[in-house]
């Protein structure tokens, strides 16, 4: 029995479902909770309010489908035929309830992926898909049936259409996507309209208004927070940021936001293929690094190779400046520390992977001399495998919940990671901002290796 609570909101309002109530974002933008226990639902007024607010959203979610596709489903026609006055008939109220229950339940074990056409990050996407399929298989699900993949052009309408099909026709339990801004926007909208959980694999795409959209992506905000905390502890007042053209700057943006103006950031970009460009970018900051008040930090958002080059340039130019070099997971390689570079000693970087020995056993990890390093080929693969692993465990867990589709998000957001050995067990699967919880590690260069701080 599905109990709905409906709150009146603006046109295209969102529905936030629970087993006992639904929260609606009203016209003023605030969330309004309405108790929709069966007793309340038996009330004609409640039924009328539900029909008045739910049907436009559902109709909007059906809009991308063709007439033929709609004809294949019974409830689109019913929704179209619903009238507020139908609530006055007890029988009709029962039909309405049945249709809503059908729409929002979808107790399938299917997880769908809406992905851009092949190209670009294809290898990464395939790695994620392979990991999901692999883990589904190990859990006893046939991945051919349980994992649906839709390739969609990077435009919003196509993404909406694909999502509508997956939600209304294929009856998937959740959708993974958002690898382009258009896709992310479409999926968030559909999540809000249909109470379908959506897992956005994106660093910075905005989540929808409802709890149905969640982010499954390495924890940039946590990484940023760890770096900023360290900067503050080290007395850093001026941080100099270097990154290549077309770099993902989300981490840096988050850091700046978290610094609350206590750290001044000065950034320079360069063309990684042109040494002169790098030298020029670094040189333009040398004077300021050398005269920084407090300990200057240099944040390098680039791979270990470029880190060594930039550190070389700065170190040879400012040998007596106690610069704190810092970076992200791109630093992590034996090539960062072998051969030893005195200039790099004490440098720090953050990562969402700790010891490679502690990875989920479903991720094959080549053994190297150090638990903190793996092969270059494996390192990038593992990053995406962990994302795939996270998606798979969430999908499997959703299936295990055995709840209606609209309840999955709530359950995921209220459960701890006990079912996933890699993620912090005591933490909720998602935090209040609906970001998937990830472990965060900080490493320090020490001799010819790194140590975990």
């Amino acid at each position, binding site marked *: 029995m599905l109990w709905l609570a409906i709150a009146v909101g603006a046109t295209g309002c969102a529905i936030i479902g629970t087993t006992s109530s639904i929260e609606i974002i009203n016209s003023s933008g605030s969330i309004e909770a309405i108790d929709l226990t069966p007793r309340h639902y038996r009330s004609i007024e409640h039924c009328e309010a539900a029909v008045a607010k739910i049907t436009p959203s559902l109709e909007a979610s059906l809009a991308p489908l063709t007439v033929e596709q709609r004809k294949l489903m019974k409830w689109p026609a019913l929704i179209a035929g619903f009238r507020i006055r139908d609530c006055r008939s007890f029988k009709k109220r029962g039909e309405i309830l049945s249709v809503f229950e059908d729409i929002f339940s979808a107790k399938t074990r299917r997880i769908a992926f809406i992905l851009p056409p092949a190209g670009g*990050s294809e290898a*990464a996407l395939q790695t994620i898909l392979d990991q999901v399929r692999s883990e589904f298989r190990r859990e006893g699900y046939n991945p051919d049936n349980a994992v649906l993949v839709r390739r969609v052009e990077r435009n919003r309408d196509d993404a909406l259409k694909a999502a509508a099909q997956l939600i209304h026709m294929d009856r998937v339990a959740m959708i993974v996507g*958002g*690898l*382009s801004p258009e896709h*992310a926007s479409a999926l968030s909208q559909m999540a809000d309209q249909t109470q379908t959980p959506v897992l*956005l*694999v*994106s*660093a*910075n*795409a905005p989540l929808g208004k409802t709890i149905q959209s969640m982010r499954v*992506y*390495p924890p940039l905000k946590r990484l940023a927070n760890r770096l900023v905390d360290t900067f503050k502890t080290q007395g850093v007042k001026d941080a100099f940021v270097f990154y*290549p053209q077309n*770099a*993902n700057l*989300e981490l840096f943006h988050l850091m700046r936001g978290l610094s609350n103006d206590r750290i001044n950031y000065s950034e320079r970009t360069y063309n*990684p293929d042109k*040494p*002169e460009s*790098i*030298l020029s970018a670094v*040189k333009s900051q040398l004077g300021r690094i050398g005269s920084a008040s407090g300990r200057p930090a240099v944040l390098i958002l680039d*791979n*270990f*190779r*470029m880190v*060594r*080059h*930039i550190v*070389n*340039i700065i170190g*040879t*130019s400012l*040998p007596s400046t106690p610069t704190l070099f810092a970076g992200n*997971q*791109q630093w*992590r*390689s*034996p*090539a960062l*520390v*072998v*051969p030893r*570079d*005195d200039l790099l000693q004490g440098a720090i970087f953050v990562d969402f992977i700790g010891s490679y020995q502690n990875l989920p056993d479903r991720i094959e990890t080549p053994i*190297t*001399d150090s638990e903190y*390093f793996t*092969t*270059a*080929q494996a*390192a*990038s693969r593992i*990053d*995406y495998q962990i*994302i795939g692993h996270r998606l798979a465990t969430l999908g499997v867990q959703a299936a295990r919940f055995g709840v209606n589709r609209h309840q999955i998000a709530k359950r995921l957001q209220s459960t701890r990671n006990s079912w996933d050995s890699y993620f912090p067990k005591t933490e909720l699967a998602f935090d209040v901002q609906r970001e998937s919880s990830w472990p965060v590690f900080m490493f320090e260069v020490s001799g010819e290796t790194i140590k975990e701080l």
Partner: protein
Amino acid sequence: MTSPIRRTRAGFFTIILGLSLAGILAAAGYLWSEGVFESEQEQIAKLTAAIIPDNSVVFDRSGNKIGEYYSFYHIHAPLDKIPKAMVNSLLAIEDRKFFEHEGVNWKSIGRAFLSVATSGRMKQGGSTITMQLVKNYLLTREKKVSRKLREIILSYYVEKNLSKERILELYLNTMYMGHGAYGVGAASRVYFGKPVEQLTLAECALLAGLFQAPSLYDPHKNPSAAIKRQRIVLDALEASKLGLSGDVAAARKQSLEFKPWTPVNETVAPHFVSWIRTEVERLLGDDELMLNDKGYKITTTLDKAFQEAANRAVADNTAPLLGLQEQINKNPKRKQPERVESALLASDPKTGAIVAMVGGRNFRESQFNRTIAARRSPGSAFKPVVFTLALEKGMTWADLVFVSPIDVRGFRPKNHKGDDMTEVTLLKALAKSMNTPVVSLAQKYGIKNVIERAQSMGVKSEMPPETGVAIGGFSSTMLDVDAIYRTLANDGTRLESYAVLKIEDRQGQVLYEYKSESNPPIQALAPEIASLMRSGLQAVLTSGTGAAVAGMGSYAAGKTGTSDDSRDNWFAGFTRTIVATTWVGGDGNSSLGDAASGSALALPIWRQFMETLVANGLPTDPWPVPENLTAVSIDLDYGVPADIGVVALFPKGRLPRKSQAAEDIRALKQDNGSYRELKLGN
């Protein structure tokens, strides 16, 4: 019956003769009154004590003559070494009565005065050999009766004080014989290219004819006149009652071969010989020592065969230099023409002895000795100094070095082919002569330490405490560069270079002799480091900028050097037994342009020199691998063991191994720099 005219003439001549004798007596009186005779003993002493001038001669280490120092070209020939034919020819044409008169042949004198009386001029000298000697040795050349009178008197005294043989010996050794030669010893060399002892009668006769007018009868300039004069001498010899000392008829028929004469100073090792003069002065502690004509014997370390190979190598590779020179001088903005030069210096690493030295490509055109006097930037040839520090600090050839763009107070070294931001093994950085890794290493280990290391390896030129020193940015000599490589070739032990083995005076007294005890070996580097470094320098040949001589890589090691803006082009290399350094550059320090990069100019000279030595038996044994080192073939880019790679030595405790760091770099390069870069969802 005599005619009245004849009687009148006889009377006239009698009067003239009487007047002349009266004049002589008057002159004698005048000379007496002037105290001339009081100084005769003093004058004679000059001759009796005369030391016949003799060139100081420079020999190579095997006793081959390679140079001479002289004011006038002499080769002292003792009388007993001078062929009888020479002596007799001389006497026949100059002074047939030499052994009969007492210095003056009065008949001849009489004829001479008669000549003066009749013609008013002194047509005939009437001088004996003794008189000519006196005139040449003690008097001026003015043609005055008073000088003649004095000549007569002094000749008389000379005869009283010196034996006839001594007078002859002095005469034969001191008289000018044209073409810069004094004495028959020198003339024999100058005209016939052989020692005087080996002269034939025909040749002796020709030389004898030169005493009268050496320029007129100069065989090189005027061979027909010389031959004509030789015939006169032979005729005189035949007509004299002197022994013939050979078949005059055969001598007349003998075809004389005049050999063009080039002073030995200009043929074998001119720059070396020129330098040795100052070395001798230094060793004898006498800056004003006049070596010329002293008859010293100076035995040097030079090896004539090596020197000739060096000369040939420089000469054969001059054409490209001239082409380059022409090209440079085409620039209309040039104020002074450039001269593109080359030089070669070779030494023995085990002793420090200099065995070959070519100070320039043409001594006649330029006497400037570029091996010792030119102060040039050694460029990359200096880099091994820095690498020895890195090896000493524990780096191995397989270690990766990050080549980052560098700007040290405006000093921005560049690498060839734009490798300004990459990572290479230490071995590749050396083999490909990359600048920025070396500068980084120097910065890391300290410029002060680099300079001290260079000094310990033998660099004597001043090095400023600046970063540029690491890549040879200072003025050095070839001796400095030679010292660096000699130290490496000698297992890290430095010996001072030297060039003089022995100096003897003309009496055979040893004035100086090189003693190895005075050149104690200095251990500049641990032998292990020297071996490691040498193996790296072998890789330069097999797989680096010296690949033009890759075939020598099994027994030779070396390094190219190009200074800033390609102003200097070097190659310094060595085998187990020799170190050779070659240099090409403009005297005006012009950029040689792209042509001077890498191994274009200096290496071919080095190559030809070494190939010649090897063809002539220079040992080509490979170096033994020291017990504590192991030879391993590695990938030049990543330093991991590789079946097809470059061989270098490694300490047994630090052998190269499969490196994840190297693999990561390789993967990163192949993946265009993408590594754990999360770009999903952007």
